[in-house]
């Protein structure tokens, strides 16, 4: 057997053993399983079923280009303005708040949601799983 092929087989076998270890020790979820929700996340289908207040945590340019209807722009750059716009909206009609950013892994929505939970401890606040990508799909 050529040397390269022999070495490749050794590496493939060791990698497979490692992956099997991850699966059988429950380190890794089954690759074919539906990805679960992280704490504080909500799926789009559930958010749509509720009457929610949408917060857009993307950049102002992205917000201007397109956003979920009636969503309020609230990101780290315009925190004060966003809060001023959010408060009367939420106080006159308290409802769950859902924050979204660009994609599944952008992370801004989770940061904004966390910050909002400190500012509004009585509010029910979620970040949208999949973000804006989930909405446009």
């Amino acid at each position, binding site marked *: 057997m050529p040397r390269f092929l022999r070495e490749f087989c050794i590496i493939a076998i060791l990698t497979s053993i*490692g*992956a099997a270890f991850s699966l059988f020790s429950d380190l*890794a979820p089954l*690759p074919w399983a539906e990805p679960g929700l992280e704490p504080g996340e909500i799926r789009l289908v559930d958010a749509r079923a509720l009457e929610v207040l949408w917060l857009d945590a993307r950049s102002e340019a992205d917000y201007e280009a397109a956003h979920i209807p009636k969503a309020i722009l609230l990101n780290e750059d315009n925190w004060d303005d966003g809060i001023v716009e959010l408060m009367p909206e939420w106080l006159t009609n308290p409802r769950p708040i859902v924050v979204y950013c660009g994609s599944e*892994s952008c*992370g801004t929505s989770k940061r904004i949601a966390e910050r909002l939970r400190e500012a509004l401890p009585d509010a029910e606040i979620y970040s949208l799983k999949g973000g804006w990508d989930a909405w446009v799909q």
Partner: protein
Amino acid sequence: MGAISQKSLVVLIARLVLAGVFVMAALPKIQDPGAFATSVAAFRVIGPGLSGWVALLLPWLELIIGLGILIPAIRRTSCALIGLLLLLFIALHTSAWVRGLDINCGCFGAETGEVSTDYRWLLLRNGLLLAATVLVLRQDRRNNHSALRS
């Protein structure tokens, strides 16, 4: 003699750096494959079904070839695979940069702070690692030819 030793030292350092980077990149991803699957899916190159498999297999491959580059029995193929993976990463990052994706690269697992990716730094880093890989591969090839001749 002095020049040869110096060159060998540079290749040894390059080998150790590559091993260190790949092992350090693999361990957090092995510990949290779910977060890595999310990072993989964010590149929008493969579907969510396939990203789970990549998140399961790729970290172990990185660990094995990261260690393998130090093990004589598999070091040449490990080095070649490191080079191929680096080329793949460079292509993926370039593609994500061109498409304007605001994502975490997931290179070292789910980085804390979740800051956006600096594509210039990523490409520079992977380019330097690729140069180190080429250096190690050339040295291994030379060593192999010398061994065959003697």
